[in-house]
C-alpha cells in the first residue's frame, strides 16, 4: 500500500467510528416506547358506545386518526358501528386523578383481539379543537393517548416533564395542554416498529 494514501484511510476509519458512535448515543434517547402486545394485522375497527355524548365524537375520532395518519406506519383505524371495540363515558373516580382507562384483551398468541376505552365522566373535559383552559382536560389529547394503548403501547420509558416535548404515551396529562394530540418521535418509532 502506498504510504501517501494512509492519511485518507485513517480519516475514513475515524469517520466510520464517529458515525457508529453517534448512532449508539442517539438510539436510546429516541426509542423508549414500551409494547405489551400487538394486533396480528395492521388495522382495526372501533365505534362510539351508547354512553358517549355526541359532543365527544369528534375528539374521539381525532384520537383514532392520530395513529392512522402516520406515514411510516401502515396502521389504520376504521369506524364501524358494528365493531366490538368501543369508547364509553363512565364514572371512575371523581374529578382529576384518573382521566380514562383502556382495557384490551390478548389471545394465546399474544395478539390483541378487542379493546374498550372508558373516559371518566367526572372530569372537566374540553371537547373542542382549539386550546383548552388551564384546568380543562383536552379530549383530543386523552383520546390519542388511549388509542395508543389500544395498539399495545404501554407508558413510555422516555423522560416525561409535563412539557411540549413529552410523548403522547407519557402517563400523566398536564391540564390545558394539547401536545399529546400529535404522536412524538418515540410514539412514531413504536407504531412503526410494530405496524410498519
Amino acid at each position: 500500500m502506498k504510504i501517501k494514501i494512509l492519511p485518507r484511510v485513517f480519516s475514513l476509519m475515524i469517520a466510520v467510528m464517529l458515525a457508529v458512535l453517534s448512532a449508539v448515543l442517539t438510539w436510546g434517547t429516541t426509542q423508549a416506547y414500551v409494547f405489551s402486545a400487538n394486533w396480528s394485522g395492521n388495522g382495526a375497527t372501533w365505534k362510539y358506545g351508547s354512553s358517549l355524548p355526541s359532543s365527544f365524537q369528534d375528539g374521539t375520532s381525532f384520537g383514532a386518526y392520530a395513529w392512522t395518519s402516520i406515514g411510516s406506519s401502515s396502521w389504520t383505524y376504521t369506524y364501524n358501528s358494528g365493531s366490538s371495540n368501543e369508547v364509553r363515558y363512565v364514572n371512575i373516580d371523581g374529578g382529576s386523578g384518573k382521566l380514562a382507562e383502556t382495557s384490551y384483551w390478548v389471545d394465546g398468541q399474544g395478539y390483541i383481539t378487542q379493546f374498550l376505552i372508558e373516559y371518566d365522566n367526572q372530569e372537566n373535559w374540553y371537547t373542542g379543537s382549539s386550546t383548552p383552559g388551564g384546568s380543562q382536560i383536552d379530549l383530543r389529547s386523552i383520546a390519542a393517548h388511549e388509542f395508543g394503548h389500544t395498539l399495545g403501547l404501554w407508558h413510555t420509558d422516555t423522560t416525561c416533564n409535563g412539557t411540549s416535548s413529552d410523548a403522547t404515551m407519557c402517563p400523566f396529562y398536564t391540564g390545558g395542554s394539547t401536545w399529546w394530540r400529535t404522536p412524538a418521535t418515540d410514539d412514531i418509532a413504536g407504531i412503526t416498529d410494530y405496524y410498519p
Partner: protein
Amino acid sequence: MNKKIIFILFSIVFFGALVGLVAAFTIHRPTASTTSTNPVNNSGKRYSSASYAAMTRVERIDAANAIFTGMVKSISQSKWNQDSGEEWISDDTTPNSPGSFRIHTITIEVDQPFVDQIHLGKEVILTIFGNSPYDGFVDHGLQVGDRAFFFAWERNLAWKEGGSRKTLMMMSYPWDSYLLYQPDELYHTKKDNQPPVSLGDLIKEIAQRRDVLIRP
C-alpha cells in the same frame, strides 16, 4: 516505527473499537424486545392502562389526606371494582354507570405520619389503579420490603354495585406518589426527575404548606 506497522496497529485498534461500538449499540438499544414482555400464552387475558392528571409534589402535599413513611408489607393480586373483586365489563346503557377497572392494594406498615386526616393505624391499605405486579405492566415500582415516603388521598371510587366507595389511594400517577428510601438514606423519585431528598427536607417542605405531625 515503520509506517506500515503503524497502519497495521491502527487497523487492529479501529476494528476492535468498531466491534466494541457495535456490541454497545446492541446492548444499549432499549427496543421493544428489552423494554416489554409480550404476554404470549395469556389466552384471553385483559390488560388495563390509563392516563392520569399530572400532579407536582407541591400539589400532592396540598391535596393529600395522608402523608407518611412506611414499609410495604404485602401487595395484592389484581381485582376489579365490585364487591366480589371479579372481572366485569361496564354497562353502556345506563347513564352515569360505573366504569369497570382493575385495581390492586398494597398494605403498608406505617412508620411515621406527617399529615393524617384519616386516623392512620399501624397499618394502612392503599389502593392503586391498574395491574398488580403479579400481572405485569404495573404503574409503580414498589416491592414487598420497600421503605418509602407516601402521599395518599381519599377518592370516591365508582363501584359496580352502585354509588361509590371512599377509598384511600395513591395520588394520580402512582410512580410519582411515593419516594423510595435508598441506601444513601435519601428518598428518591422514579419518574419526575427530581433530585433525591432527605427526610428532614421533605418535612420542611410539607411544613411550609400543612400542619405537620412530628412524633417524638
